[in-house]
Each structure stands twice: as structure tokens, then as C-alpha cells.
């Protein structure tokens, strides 16, 4: 009987250990910049949800496009109404794999290659980008930069304002992950 109890205890231990391989945060920062000399276009959301699975080296992001805040209220309105079409496509998503092998116990900064699918405006594209990942005790700090173009995601920009919006948009991500307890 003692052995049976041991088994149950072992099983429970394995279960919690299983949960420890996932890290997450609900308040990751994502900002993007598509400024030109004519117009400053910068927006930030601090409500992105993201997971890292350190066993499978997987990473996933999700952010509501309406959570992006702009300096100009009108720009925010146009972003949601005319460009991203938030009512039709409320979320932007990424899911992919960390290609570079990371020693998750090392507590050292690693420049890692991440490959996966980015979905914006209902269009999914394969992207590859470099991320700085610092594993730590009970947390993981990560930041990354992705460059995309509005055309890649079928975002239509009228010719009157084409010169005001950068051809290439830089997306920056800042996340501090903590262990995920389901």
C-alpha cells in the first residue's frame, strides 16, 4: 500500500512538473511603428497574451487589435475601422517554434531564431525573426523585432495617404514570462 501511495505522490509530482514547462504572461507589450517624415505613427498594446513551452520550444502570441493605443484618437479609429478592420479580425496571432537550441537552465541571454506563422488582418504569413531570450529562475524575459509590410497582410492603403505610412512596419515585442499554472 505504501508503494501505491508513493505512486500517487509521484504522479502528482510529475503533473506539476509537467505544468512547469510552460511559461506565460497576459501583459506582454507589443508596439509597432510605421512613422514617416510626414507622420508619427506609433501604437502600443500592453495586453498581449503569450506562452512559451520550453519542452517543445514552442511560442505563441495573441493580441486584441483594439487594445492598441495611439497618440491620436482619430488615428486609432482609422486603424481599427479602415486598416486592421478589428470588428472582422479582432485578434492578431503568432505561433511558432524557437529554432535555436536553448539551455533553459543557463540564465544567459540567447539570441534565438524563431520561425512561425503570423496572422494579421485574417492573413497568415510565414515569418522568421531573431529574439533575445533570457531564461531565469521562475521567469523568462524575451524581446523581439519583426518587420512586416502592410501589403503582406492585404491591408489596403489609399494612394492619398500612402506616403504618410511607412512601407515597412516594425513590430516590437517585450514579454516577461512566469510559470503557467492551469
Amino acid at each position, binding site marked *: 500500500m505504501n508503494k501505491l501511495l508513493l505512486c500517487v505522490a509521484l504522479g502528482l509530482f510529475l503533473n506539476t512538473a509537467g505544468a512547469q514547462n510552460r511559461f506565460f504572461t497576459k501583459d506582454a507589450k507589443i508596439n509597432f511603428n510605421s512613422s514617416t517624415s510626414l507622420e508619427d505613427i506609433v501604437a502600443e498594446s500592453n495586453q498581449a497574451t503569450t*506562452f512559451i513551452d520550453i519542452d517543445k520550444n514552442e511560442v505563441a502570441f495573441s493580441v486584441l487589435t483594439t487594445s492598441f493605443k495611439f497618440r491620436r*484618437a482619430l488615428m486609432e479609429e482609422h486603424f481599427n475601422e479602415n486598416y486592421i478592420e478589428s470588428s472582422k479580425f479582432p485578434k492578431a496571432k503568432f505561433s511558432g517554434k524557437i529554432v535555436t537550441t536553448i539551455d533553459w537552465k543557463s540564465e544567459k541571454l540567447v539570441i534565438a531564431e524563431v520561425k512561425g506563422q503570423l496572422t494579421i488582418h485574417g492573413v497568415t504569413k510565414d515569418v522568421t525573426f531573431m529574439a533575445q531570450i533570457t531564461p531565469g529562475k521562475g521567469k523568462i524575459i524575451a524581446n523581439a523585432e519583426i518587420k512586416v509590410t502592410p501589403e503582406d497582410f492585404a491591408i489596403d492603403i489609399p494612394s492619398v495617404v500612402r506616403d504618410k505610412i511607412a512601407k515597412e512596419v516594425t513590430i516590437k515585442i517585450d514579454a516577461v514570462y512566469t510559470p503557467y499554472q492551469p
Partner: protein
Amino acid sequence: MTNTMKDKLITSLLVIGMIVFYSIPARSQDLDALLDKETKPQTTYAAATFKSTRIVNGHSVQQMKKKQLEFRVSHRFGDLNTGSYNFWGLDQGTIHLGLGYGITDWLEVGIGRSTYEKTADAFAKVSILRQSSGEKNMPVHISYLASTEVIGLNTNPAMQQNFTSRMSFIQQILIARKFNESLSLQLTPTFIHRNLVPTELDKNDLFACGIGGRYKLSKRISLNIEYYYVYRANASSLPVTYYNPLSIGIDIETGGHVFQIMVTNAQAMREGGFIGKTAASWSDAGIHLGFNISRVFTFNK
């Protein structure tokens, strides 16, 4: 098989069973599913119910957000039925210049001046309820508008004697719903008090109700229609026949500007005028071509 061996076998089977049992549900749930689980239902507020702060002549529930300033130039040509001598109304023009500023996201104040009876005006628009869906559900947007107009024209001796007789006060409740991306409708119950009216037969208090809407023809162009029903119990006995204002317009939005081009039987561009004193009618081509130009400036850091 000895008992200890049996025990060992059972134990190892249990261990394997436990590992399989505990790890399977965790593994089968991929990160995408976890993301959906952790992204809680949020409240989304309907934005851009209308493209501009006016449907055509009257206010819409749209207002300037905090530290946003709107400069608005409105222009109405003369009556179409004045014929070739007056170049079908284009020889004449009535202008309104207005500023609106968002003190907070829910309070906008504004001032304006019109060549129509040399009227100066000031208003405050308060957003009371916002249309939302998700965690919080609210089917309509409700705003309150209070406005004061002062007639500057010096042709009425009573007005020259007493400043307050130049004033009228407008109260409106704006109830709007954005039904979908294209269609928004607004009901606008209105109460107008005029301190001085043209004749004894005119009532100082005027009740009216506006109905207006927009339908988006494309992402940046919409068709707007606005009609105000004005209640006048003694309309037939009044020396001047007043009509209910009906306006049909097109909104064209280009970034920071919104252009509104319209035809309307109202010549005035403020509530006291277009609701209270529209004396031209569509049926005898008493219509005016007009436009509004709105430009928004931001004072946020």
C-alpha cells in the same frame, strides 16, 4: 511469481499509468488552445458610429476625444429655385465657422459663429453611455447636447433693447446605434426654447425629433440622411410656413479631414436655425447645395 515480483510489477505498471495519465491531457492541449482559454472575454466599444461629429446639420454621437480639436467650416449656397439670375443659388452663401474641443473623452465643448442672422453659439456634448458588446453589453450610445445661440442681427428693436431676447437654448438627447460596419442610425429628441419669437403666434418652446443615419458605401465614403420632425400645433396660422428639414449628404474621409457634401432645404447650420426656422421646402426646389469641412488637430504629447 513471488509476491514481491508481483508487487514490483504492479508498482511499475501504476507508475507508467500515472505518467501516461497525467501527461496526456497536458500534452494534447497545444499553445493555441491555451491562448484562447487565457484570452478572457473583453468589452469592445463601438467606435466610429459616424464619420463626423455632425450627421449633416445636426450633431451625431461622435465627439472629440481628450485633447482633440476640431475646426469645422460649413457652407450653404442659396436656394436652387432662385433661378439663373441667382445662378441657382450659387451666387449666395451662408457660412458657419466652428471649433470643438475634447476636455475629456466624454465631454466636448465648442463655439461657433454663423453669418445666418449673425449667430454666435456655444455647446457642450456629454457622452453618457457607450455602445458595447462582450463582457458589458449596451445596445446604444447615448449623449446629451446643450447649446446656446445668440442672434447678433441688429434689425429687431426688441433684441437691441434686451440682450437676453437674442438667446435660444437647445437640448438634445442623442441615441445612436451602430448596427453593423455599414449602418448606423440615430434618434434625436430635441427641445428648443427661444426667448423671443417673431410673432405672438410662434411658440417659445419647440419640440422636435430627429432621425438620421449613415450607410457606408465604401470604407471611406458614406451616405448620410437626416430628417427632423418639428411639432407645431398652430402651423397653419403662422405668417411664415415652416418646413421640416431634410438633408442628404455624402461623407468623404481622408485621414484627418472629413468632407461632407449635401443637399438640404435648411439654410442655417445650427439647431435653432435649421430646426426652428427652415422656410424652404423640397417640393418647390427650395434646396441648398452645401458642404462641411472638418479638420482634427491633436494636442496630445
